[in-house]
């Protein structure tokens, strides 16, 4: 079975919003800055609820923030 990985575009989305700080995003999503750092660097996969909150903070659909792609595929990572 092929291995899949959760990737995210948080870094790009923050950049697109005038270099939104991790602290500002953390406050909007209701988590600590350390959790945002861990998610952004793909060290931690958030719960579905938190993933929706992050997408809501950016005002975009969930699929624009997170993707579930094969591990060897590097195309959609931040």
């Amino acid at each position, binding site marked *: 079975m092929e291995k899949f990985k959760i990737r995210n575009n948080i870094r790009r989305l923050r950049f697109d919003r005038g270099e939104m700080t991790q602290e500002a995003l953390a406050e909007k999503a209701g*988590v*600590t800055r*350390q*959790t945002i750092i*861990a998610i952004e660097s793909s*060290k*931690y*996969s958030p719960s579905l609820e938190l993933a929706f909150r992050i997408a809501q903070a950016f005002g975009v659909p969930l699929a624009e923030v997170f993707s579930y792609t094969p591990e060897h595929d590097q195309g959609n990572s931040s």
Partner: protein
Amino acid sequence: MSNRKTEITVSLVSTLAVLAYYLVNIFQMIQGGGLNSAEVFRLWAVVIIATIILNIAGNIITNIVINIVHAIKTQKGEEVRMLEDERDRLIGLKGDRVSYLAFSIGVFLSMLTFALGQPPLVMFSLIVLSSLIAEIFGDVSQFLFYNRGA
């Protein structure tokens, strides 16, 4: 270092201090002719109370220091967000699991000494020792989980 990591470090240092105190006293008793039940019971009481007080005091002092450092850094009077999110809870649970496993092994080994003919005082002393070691294992594992991401 994040606030949670600082809190874990303080807890780790205080537990290590209590463990050192416990081991020094136990070895002194052994060198002085074996474990005396009255002294051992007093030592357990001191260790349990010291662990609780040091952890509470450590947490309070850490939070005060974190707030002071934050106020100096930001030059504002606002408080630090001491938020516990899903990742903190997950890491806390994982740490508890490691701690529980270490304590279970400790209790098993302690009972083994009793089954092999050691007095009950030795068994209970080892159970107290394993509880302190389990606490340390839990803190160290939490620290490692924070470094790894979760």
